[in-house]
């Protein structure tokens, strides 16, 4: 494939500042549907997968600060014996909201940020399959998140916050035992975020299956694409299960059903089964995106291809399947009978195998590489190191008898923080540093980045390392305080100090974002180039920041790591030689003739309707009815919305996006997810042969 000479021009203005007012470089003139491509309103109505990804990231970062503040309250309360910083009632709300926030409102949407931003780019597509549905997923998620977080303030500080733990076991979640509105917020809020995840998963699955560019066969997809795809399948099948559980809980609390009413003969283990059939795949939903990110970063900074690509993909798929067969290891002490315990104990142990394969492949990728320890690489190697610790402690409580000593102690708290913080969150932060120049056109400062990494890593180990000891010494989870003579004081104090070190590390990250942005603005916004890291995926084959239309023309893929192979070849001695610069290979974003889907009012309106229905279910059914009216109106507007801008030339009036593909998520009052025309997003709709010879 010959590439014609092309002059490199930095975009006049840059796209997609996180809070910046300027959106420039709108390839196609004016849009109706919502008018205007600048200012904050253009963010509200955008259907661009990149902007939606950035909004997911920003929202997740906001919730991360909320959840982090809750974590600090937990640590302050537990710093000393007989702590009295917050009372037991508030404490229960704080740790519940910490867990719910971090799992559902931080890690999942952060992964969604990467999925939205990168999936279409990595497979060479224009956008996701259903751009408006994508926008709806975000607003729906935000509605659920805000509803959950608002419970902290409504009716007094933590008076109506969920207080049953993130696992919310029945019957403690029943009205007699939890009379505040907290559990209602939990049930309704998680259903709303569930709708968002489900719609998003359908959208992204279709995107990956259907919108790959020419030649992008499954085994040419980057590992991140693979891991995100597996994650979406896990969501697709796990979300309905928790939805059922939440429905039953809501019916019990709001309309006096008997699902968890022990007096009527109910068995509370039903909740546990439903919750953990969702809950264990959920663990892999949290960690697999980070695995994908690490699999992108390590080869780039080792200057080698990923070792054992097929095995990495296969182990991800294996984890995806095996993740469904281990849920009852959360219930070894619940009384499920010795045979079930034995079966789940064994299945749990073997899920360590594919995870171990991943660790070893990453190490093998680094072996004999040329390792550049940039900030993203530090985070990625941090994941390899820290996640291993979480994996090993995981094996120790796959041993069911020893789990009876460890479960519900701080040993478990240590374990899953090494998995979710040390694995997922460090990986996602590494991803921020890695793809930041791609999304915004400038790098974050390496100096601050490395410093904040080390501060976070040290703080993390000081916080959660001692919890292994505390757990084995018998400190239970979810206790608001402990007696002085139980011997937990020392390590709790260490953990509390560590947690504040983490807070400093996070503050340094935010400071880094701030100063790097300022510096870049002051320096006259230099262009970082399409490929600042000498990377391998297709997302680097277009300008930074990515123009709204992604690629100037369709890319034909002939092998794994296509972009890298266009830059490098081998000479007669089988040595790698550079054959082209990234600038020569990459698209410069100059094609302005690409037809893109127009923004839309309706996704955010629909999200607002769902928010009203949510509050209405909790407080007043009339409010829910009003929300339902808004919701139905929004669906009506959505369907009747012109598929295209009437003012734009060449629009076709018979949009084929009404009525079809009614993806009503589970009939649970969610929207009729009318499939919308993706024709505008198909890769072939550029002026054919405009630039590529």
């Amino acid at each position, binding site marked *: 494939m010959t590439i014609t000479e092309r002059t490199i021009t930095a975009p006049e203005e840059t796209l997609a500042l996180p809070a910046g007012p300027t959106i420039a470089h709108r390839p196609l003139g004016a849009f109706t549907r919502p008018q205007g491509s600048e200012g904050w309103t253009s963010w509200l109505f955008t259907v661009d997968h990149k902007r939606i990804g950035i909004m997911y990231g920003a929202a997740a970062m906001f919730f991360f600060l909320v959840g982090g503040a809750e974590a600090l309250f937990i640590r302050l309360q537990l710093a000393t014996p007989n702590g009295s910083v917050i009372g037991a009632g508030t404490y229960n709300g704080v740790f519940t909201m910490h867990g719910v926030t971090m799992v559902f409102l931080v890690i999942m949407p952060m992964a969604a940020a990467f999925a939205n931003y990168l999936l279409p780019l990595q497979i060479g597509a224009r956008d996701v399959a259903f751009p408006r549905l994508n926008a709806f997923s975000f607003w729906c998620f935000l509605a659920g998140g805000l509803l959950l977080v608002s419970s902290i303030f409504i009716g007094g500080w933590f008076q109506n916050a969920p207080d049953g733990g993130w696992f919310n076991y029945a019957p403690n979640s029943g009205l007699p035992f939890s009379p505040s509105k907290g559990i209602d917020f939990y049930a309704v809020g998680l259903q709303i975020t569930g709708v968002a995840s489900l719609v998003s998963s359908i959208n992204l699955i279709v995107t990956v299956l259907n919108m790959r560019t020419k030649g992008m066969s499954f085994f040419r997809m980057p590992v991140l694409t693979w891991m995100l795809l597996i994650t979406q399948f896990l969501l697709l099948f796990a979300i309905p299960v928790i939805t059922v559980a939440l429905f039953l809980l809501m019916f019990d609390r709001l309309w006096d059903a008997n699902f968890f009413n022990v007096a009527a003969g109910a068995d509370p283990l039903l909740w546990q089964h439903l919750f953990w059939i969702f809950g264990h795949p959920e663990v892999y939903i949290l960690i697999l995106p980070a695995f994908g990110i690490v699999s992108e970063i390590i080869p780039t900074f080792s200057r*080698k291809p990923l070792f054992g690509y097929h095995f990495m993909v296969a182990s991800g798929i294996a984890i995806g399947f095996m993740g469904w067969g281990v849920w009852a290891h959360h219930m070894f002490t619940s009384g499920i009978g010795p045979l079930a315990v034995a079966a789940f104990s064994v299945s749990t142990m073997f899920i360590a195998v594919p995870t171990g394969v991943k660790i070893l492949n990453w190490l093998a990728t680094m072996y004999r590489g040329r*390792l550049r320890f940039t900030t993203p690489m530090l985070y990625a190697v941090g994941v390899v190191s820290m996640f291993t610790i979480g994996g090993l*402690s995981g*094996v120790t409580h796959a041993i069911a008898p020893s789990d009876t000593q460890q479960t519900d102690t701080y040993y478990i708290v240590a374990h899953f923080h090494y998995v979710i913080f040390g694995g997922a969150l460090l990986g996602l932060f590494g991803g921020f540093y890695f793809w930041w120049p791609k999304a915004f056109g400038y790098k974050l400062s390496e100096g601050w980045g490395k410093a904040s990494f080390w501060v976070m890593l040290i703080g993390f180990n000081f916080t959660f390392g001692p919890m292994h000891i505390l757990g084995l010494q018998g*400190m239970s989870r979810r206790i608001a305080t402990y007696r002085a003579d139980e011997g937990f004081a020392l390590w709790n104090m260490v953990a509390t100090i560590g947690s504040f070190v983490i807070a400093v590390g996070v503050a340094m990250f935010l400071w880094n974002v701030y100063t790097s942005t300022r510096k870049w603005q002051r320096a006259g916004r230099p262009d970082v180039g399409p490929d600042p890291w000498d990377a391998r995926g297709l997302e680097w084959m277009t300008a930074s920041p990515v123009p709204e239309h992604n690629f100037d023309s369709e890319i034909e893929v002939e092998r794994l790591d296509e972009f890298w192979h266009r830059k490098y070849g081998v000479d007669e001695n089988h040595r790698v030689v550079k054959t082209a610069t990234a600038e020569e290979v990459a698209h410069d974003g100059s094609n302005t003739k690409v037809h893109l889907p127009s923004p839309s009012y309706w996704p955010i309106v629909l999200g607002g309707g769902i928010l009203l229905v949510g509050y209405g279910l909790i407080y007043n059914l009339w409010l829910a009815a009003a929300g339902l009216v808004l919701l139905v109106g929004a669906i009506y507007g959505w369907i009747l919305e012109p598929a295209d801008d009437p003012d734009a030339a060449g629009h076709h009036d018979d949009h084929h996006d009404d009525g079809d593909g009614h993806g009503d998520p589970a009939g649970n009052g969610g929207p009729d997810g009318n499939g919308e025309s993706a024709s505008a997003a198909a890769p072939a709709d550029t002026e054919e042969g405009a630039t590529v010879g």
Partner: protein
Amino acid sequence: MSRRLRALVWLSSLLIIAGTIALIVVGIVVTDDHPLSTLSPVGRQGRDIARLINPIFIVAGVVFFLVQGAVLALWWRYRVGGSETGDGEHGYYEDDEFPDQIHGNDRLEIAWTIVPTILLAVISVFTLVGLFALDDVKASEEDMVVTVIGQQWWWEYQYHLDGDTTTPPDIVTANELVIPAGVDVALDIKSRDVIHSFWIPKLNGKRDAVPGRSHDWVIQADNPGRYRGQCTEFCGLSHGYMKMVAIALTPSEFAQWRDNQLTSADLPTEGTAAAAGWDTFSQQCASCHVINGVTSPANRGGDPDAPTDGWDIYGEFNGESAGAYLETDTLVAGAAPNLTHLMTRGTFAGSIFDLYLGAGDHIPYLDLPTSGVLNRGDLEAWISNAPERKPADADGLRGMPARTGLSPNDIDNVVAFLSTLD
């Protein structure tokens, strides 16, 4: 050569630092006194678990050092000096040096799939053997069975001395589980309200107390002693304050304790402070607390399986809105501790307060009522305003309600009455 030497120095100093930290940590862990520790089991089941898990800790430790060592070694050996030259620059790698572009090695992949699989298969064989061995401890039919009942936020123990749990219990006590040392004691774990978990870490792992279910469990203590526990399944507001103690006595001491517990209480002599205390008690406390021989046997602390007792809190409101019974003046769990032999216990209020000052292990358990110095401060404060000392639901339905209307004199009298319950 010098590079290799530097690497050696670098790595070994790192190892020395890491080793020192590890030693200090292990030292603190081992020497510190931890009444709830799982690391120093003194019961048969706890020991079996430790025997199963300790080698696995070692295996995990070896893998830990191998992986972390590999990370550090790769880092050291293959890192490229020099760092980022500046933001926004193109061509991060300007050098022409490329490592071999190895894409993988199928044999290696298969090896490191199979080796851990075999390792884990071996571990799972030991696990299964251990699991079924632990499960296979059936006390004989006529051995004593203790029904352990969790409720918000204390534990009740119902002793069925003949092992027949279908008949009313012989002894009902709270928070302190007294067992004979050296023998397996069968437990039958239940709950009256939400899920709790019974856990005496030094004796055995935990077992959930699930309402509507009955879980068999066994504990055994090698030696007489006092072994602490903590409810380990989140059970609502005061979960952290729901503790318990297992007291192992020699067989003869246990028999002595048992015989005493089988006796009923007597009403105090008229005219004494205790009698005045009884008057107050009967008005303020007896609707929930049972004292055998003194208060009515139609108590709320009966067998949880009995259709009209215990859980009938649900039955009473069956068919009505769940919200309805919040408006009634009844405990959600429907039961409060039986106080017949309160003074024989070393702790009260979910074992969060000591009943005797500084008693600990210094006074033999059976001598507590006679030799111990009553912890009046906590006891009186508890009687007058329990929710202040231990979080309880403000509406009084979960946990002991406040009795702030009682004068200091009333409380003195109630304490005097309680002091007769030995």
